[in-house]
């Protein structure tokens, strides 16, 4: 039989706010135990949902029994569907005109992405420490959290209409479920959203089943955003994408799904055209894709620096390359810049189609080093025993910091996280800093730089104490004040 009309299983009557579903007692049934068995639900639940039935062992065929709401959309509905046809023809017709029960179950279990109904691209966002953390799940409409009754009504009407469209009916059950889940979780379901969704589905028909599935998952990860769907369609139809091997397409679509926003898709599409990308091995392509996608997707980073950096690397007219390099140490350095090439450490970012495995090392490379090293390239920095080189290294660090955190470093952060290292005699910068300090004019520039940062009077006698021993809390400048921008191109324009 089919579950009789009603609430919880047809639009407009969802969750706790709707009425319970009912089922008719079948020929041969006379007890609630038999009904519970047929529906596959606990007897206690059925008894509790039917206080109006005085004698649970005295049922007669045709009598209506309430199906508890907590079981709707679960095994009860599924079991009911597989039983004999419901004698209630009117009810059956109503079901045919509504969503299939299985599809509706999917819909009912879809979490709403935003209580405001707006589309969010912040599926992943950078944490204060530079990490990329997934947002917690939001309200479940089945529990009536996040959806107003009016919104539920509009949503179910729209999805019902969608369900009747031939192009939707032609989809597989999995596709239907994925799309309904995406749409139900991201109201309102606008005509534009549906239109872009069908455009995307049509484009994805040319893909392998696995890649097609990735597109469906990406659409959901992209919160059913029309802009995201349009960008994804454009990518799939791009001749450069079409020319990729199946495995390469999987690599691209995986990162489109892992870092879901329209701008990141655009950056990936630009990357496909670069000679340096095309000549990389599959493993390095996967590294490039996830790194550039994570960098592009950093919601908390400095957007201007991120966009400028990506333009420098991905613009058709750009002469900069990206290359993955094996170093003698697995985790360091993060990267380097030379001869118009950004080199990144192959040992830090794993090949594969998963998102970047998040830790401070991988986050630093993806969110910071890319901007840092591109800054060296746009400024054509060269090593020297000079203040200018000291400033160049500080500037590149400053740009990387802003790209990752979306704010300039404070005076204290600049001193502790960078300047001390640049003066460290055993660091890669120590020799050049020591060399600069031997030249009075260069040394004076370094002292002035330290004086500006700390507010202290700095000279040849006290600079070591200022760098290594002074307490930022005692500086005349506030330790928390943003450090002054360094000289030179400090936004990678």
């Amino acid at each position: 039989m089919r579950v009789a009309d009603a609430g919880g299983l047809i639009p407009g009557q969802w969750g706790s706010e709707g009425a319970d579903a009912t089922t008719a007692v079948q020929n041969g049934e006379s007890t609630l135990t038999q009904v519970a068995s047929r529906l596959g639900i606990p007897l206690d639940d059925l008894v509790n949902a039917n206080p109006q039935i005085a004698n649970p062992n005295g049922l007669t065929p045709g009598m209506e029994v309430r199906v508890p709401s907590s079981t709707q959309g679960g095994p009860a509905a599924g079991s009911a569907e597989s039983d004999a046809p419901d004698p209630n023809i009117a009810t059956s017709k109503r079901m045919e005109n509504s969503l299939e029960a299985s599809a509706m179950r999917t819909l009912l279990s879809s979490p709403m992405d935003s209580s405001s109904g707006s589309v969010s691209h912040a599926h992943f966002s950078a944490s204060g420490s530079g990490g990329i953390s997934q947002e917690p799940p939001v309200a479940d409409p089945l529990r009536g959290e996040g959806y107003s009754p009016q919104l539920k009504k509009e949503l179910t009407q729209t999805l019902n209409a969608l369900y009747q469209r031939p192009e939707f009916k032609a989809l597989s059950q999995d596709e239907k479920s994925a799309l309904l889940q995406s749409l139900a979780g991201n109201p309102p379901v606008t005509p534009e959203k549906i239109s872009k969704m069908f455009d995307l589905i049509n484009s994805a028909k040319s893909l392998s089943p696995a890649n097609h599935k990735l597109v469906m998952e990406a659409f959901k990860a992209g919160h059913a955003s029309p802009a995201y769907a349009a960008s994804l369609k454009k990518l799939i139809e791009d001749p450069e994408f079409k020319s990729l091997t199946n495995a390469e397409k999987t690599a691209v679509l995986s990162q489109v799904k892992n870092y879901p926003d329209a701008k990141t898709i655009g950056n990936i599409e630009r990357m496909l055209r670069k000679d340096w990308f095309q000549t990389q091995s599959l493993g390095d392509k996967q590294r490039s894709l996830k790194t550039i996608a994570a960098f592009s997707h950093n919601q908390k980073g400095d957007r201007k620096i991120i966009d400028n950096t990506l333009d420098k690397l991905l613009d058709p007219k750009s002469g900069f390359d990206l290359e993955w390099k094996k170093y003698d140490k697995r985790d360091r350095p993060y990267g380097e810049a030379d001869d118009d090439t950004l080199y990144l450490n192959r040992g830090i970012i794993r090949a594969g189609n998963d998102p970047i495995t998040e830790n401070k090392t991988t986050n630093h490379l993806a969110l910071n080093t890319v901007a840092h090293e591109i800054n060296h390239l746009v400024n054509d920095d060269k090593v020297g025993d000079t203040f200018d080189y000291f400033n160049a290294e500080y500037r590149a660090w400053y740009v990387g910091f802003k790209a990752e955190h979306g704010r300039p470093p404070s005076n204290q952060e600049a001193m502790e996280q960078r300047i001390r290292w640049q003066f460290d005699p055993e660091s890669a910068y120590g020799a050049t800093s020591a060399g600069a300090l031997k030249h009075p004019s260069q040394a004076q520039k370094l002292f002035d730089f330290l004086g500006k940062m700390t507010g202290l009077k700095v000279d040849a006698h006290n600079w070591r104490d200022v760098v290594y021993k002074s307490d930022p809390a005692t500086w005349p400048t506030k330790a928390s004040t943003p450090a002054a921008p360094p000289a030179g191109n400090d936004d990678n324009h």
Partner: protein
Amino acid sequence: MNEQVLRKIEETAAKDNGWKVDDVRVEEIERLRRPACSFFSAGHKVRPLSYLSNYALLSGTEIVGSGDGNVVAKIVDSCANGASADWWAEIVTRFHEDLGDGIVLRDEQTRPDIVRKLREAGKTFAPPVLDPQRRSLRYLLLDPEAYVLYQVQATRSDSGPIEVVENEVL
């Protein structure tokens, strides 16, 4: 510094890193010197690089760079007699390929800012510790580029090589 040794290290660093020999700058790390061993760092004179390559001269003849736990074991077997835990920590850091370069926190004065942050996090600073049997070493290592503090546990396995485990502290 012996000119022949210097040239040999320049050539080795150039080969290892794909640099021109004339672009290599080599410095001896004098505080690590041992009776039978000397230690050197090699950097690039022109490129703005954040890293140095490390080399050890063993018994006055053999030059080794960073590598796996067997390489580190070879260095300590050749040079570590009577060496401090600080020295061991420097060697493991500089020569074990599974560790990035970094600053070994030898004492509270090495990086007072890190010691302060440890206290703020309710943690205690500890200098490098080497067990009496010289099979286990524990120390704090700062990655100065990402400003991340790790605790490193280095252990001499029964088969010989030195194995390292790195855990994030701050």
